[in-house]
């Protein structure tokens, strides 16, 4: 990391300093924060121009754009933090169109009093995630709100990408007969977050699965360009994502509980909290819908990628005017896998 020459008399106190209102006022303090922290960490040719926007050439084709706000609590959790999450989340939203993500923007809302050391940690984590993904953060913004009017830090990222020629992936394209494939173990992120919530801490080895999925998607698209739909089952978990796709595509689904890849630790944690892993968030998984005859090739491509090793076919799309997502239970019965109502709550009795 090369520090640009700044000319500020006192460098930013990244050890004991705190965000104050001047960091968002548009004056010298804000310029210093941007230069010594954000610019230094995200360093690239676009940011170095110090404009209020980034300008870049784009290849011909269909562009996609996605935005995502991140408000996670706690900010640091097993396996990640709000920083890398905010990079992965938006890259994944872009990638779920089958697109190659190109650029990101990042917008910060900081709460007065937030430790600069924590902010630096978060920014470093974003920079690392962005470098590893090969998707630079090319423009950004910072605002500061008074103490108690924010929750430490909120990060909004926006991403753009280009869809390869001939790829048409969309949540409304799932068709009866399609095979439903999930890219790996579900529910990890939600349980990792719960395990460190202040009022519910419990010991677990489960880490968040936060990861950028565009590499996996590229391998999948190369193997099966005719994938019908992709989505990352984040908030609300796999169940919610499947219901979204069912509604968008006007179809039903039939899942097989015995084929769902779920870690024993996740099942156990959900069991004693009275929660359902199908509604637990993921940040590094995707669900794919493809023609049944393409399923083996798609699964093979996924298994060959580090983020798709545990990929599994979990059911199929069926005709259903009610757009129900149903599941054959391991017990031998059948039930609906419904939309999440409110928040998932532990049982009382």
């Amino acid at each position, binding site marked *: 990391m090369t520090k640009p020459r700044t000319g500020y008399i006192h460098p930013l106190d990244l050890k004991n300093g705190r965000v104050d209102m001047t960091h968002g006022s548009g004056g010298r303090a804000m310029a210093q924060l941007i230069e010594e922290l954000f610019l230094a960490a995200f360093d690239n040719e676009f940011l170095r121009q110090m404009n209020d926007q980034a300008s870049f050439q784009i290849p011909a084709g269909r562009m996609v754009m996605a935005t995502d706000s991140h408000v996670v609590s706690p900010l640091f959790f097993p396996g990640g933090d709000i920083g890398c999450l905010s990079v992965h989340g938006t890259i994944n939203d872009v990638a779920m169109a089958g697109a190659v993500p190109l650029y990101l923007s990042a917008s910060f809302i900081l709460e007065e009093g937030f430790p600069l050391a924590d902010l630096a940690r978060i920014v470093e984590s974003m920079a690392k995630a962005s470098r590893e993904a090969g998707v630079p953060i090319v423009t950004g913004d910072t605002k500061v709100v008074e103490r108690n009017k924010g929750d430490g830090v909120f990060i909004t990222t926006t991403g753009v990408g280009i869809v390869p020629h001939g790829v048409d992936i969309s949540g409304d394209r799932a068709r009866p007969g399609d095979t439903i494939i999930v890219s790996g173990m579900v529910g990890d992120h939600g349980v990792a977050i719960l395990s460190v919530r202040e009022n519910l801490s419990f010991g677990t080895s489960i880490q968040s699965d936060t990861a950028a999925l565009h590499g996996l998607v590229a391998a999948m698209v190369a193997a099966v360009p005719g994938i019908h739909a992709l989505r990352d089952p984040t908030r609300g978990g796999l169940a919610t994502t499947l219901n979204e796709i069912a509604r968008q595509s006007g179809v039903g689904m039939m899942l097989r509980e015995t084929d769902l890849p779920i870690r024993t630790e996740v099942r156990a944690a959900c069991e004693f909290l009275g929660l359902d892993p199908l509604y637990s968030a993921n940040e590094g998984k995707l669900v794919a819908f493809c023609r049944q005859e393409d399923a083996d090739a798609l699964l093979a491509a996924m298994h060959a990628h580090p983020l798709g090793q545990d990929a599994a076919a979990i059911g199929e799309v069926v005709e259903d005017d*009610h757009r129900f997502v149903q599941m054959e239970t391991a017990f*031998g019965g059948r039930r*609906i896998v419904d939309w999440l109502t*409110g928040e998932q*709550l532990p049982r009382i*009795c």
Partner: protein
Amino acid sequence: MKYIDEFRDGALARKLAADIRREAQPDRTYGLMEFCGGHTHAIFRYGVQGLLPDNIHMIHGPGCPVCVLPIGRVDSAIELARRPDVILCSYGDMLRVPGSNRMSLLKAKAGGADVRMIYSSADALKIAQENPDKEVVFFAIGFETTTPPTAVAILRAGEMGLKNFSVFSNHVLTPAAITAIMGSGEARVDGVVGPAHVSTVIGSRPYEPFAAQYHIPVVIAGFEPLDVMQAILMLVRQLNEGRAEVENEFSRAVTREGNIKAQSLVAEVFELRKTFEWRGLGWVPDSGLQIREKYAAYDAEKRFELPYRSVADHPACECSAIIRGVKKPLDCKVFGTVCTPDNPIGSCMVSSEGACAAYYTYGRYNDKNRTSAKRIQS
């Protein structure tokens, strides 16, 4: 997952289902009430009803903690929460239960009331410690399972010298509810799947007088689907043999005497109310618990002078009849139309342990007026 999967084994379920089918006499019907919401939830989530022969009907009982709380009590909690100096704490599902005018604690929270969802009574104590300038009220609900933790919270508050903590007690008693349902004679109940977690506290003995008086077999069962099926088989056998005994399927957790320590904690802090209003069952004598005079300083009803106002249910809502086992969710005109888990009118549509919510969430694919999903053959 060890010790869990064994109780959800599909092959064992099929064997049990075959046993039940063989034992159930085709020329009679069996109306079995599962008392607890935990059972109701398991029956719908695992599709147990689909494995039973047509002449065994499961009747969903009143054992869902948030379902049985009457509107008047919810209104009192909302009134408390709206006081500027009060932080009101309660368990998750309680926050969504509608009171008068479909107001709920969650809506009161959005309107500025300080309402906190907690996972245990100890969380409420912690909040009281951290907010010495606020009155922290624990809106305590539930059957015998949740009562001991409330008693512990009150005793702990005393030890800690907390002056700003109190409990709005709405704890209710299971045997009284079963007796009220049987006594009314409204629901045709031939046998009862007895409570799981409640029985770990009170034991199996309290059901004995009731089984003898109404000549109704009771089988205490765990909340796993195989527990429920095993209990159904045991009830069918008892009915076929003309027995009306209290049997214990959940012997891995329940004894005849129950948890003596928990019982003595409850007895130290609580005493019987003369009468308590239940949603569905109305006023039931000796069915609720109030805080003893000795601990009056922690009794929110005394501290805040909460006058009780009984409020009738929404006229279209059938929760009352469903809680009494007289009607099923589909008998309700507003089920799944204006009353859904996202926008509940009645309490049975709120908790996943409520009969309506369980039916809506897991089972509505087999509604009569809906076609079930057609498998694509390839």
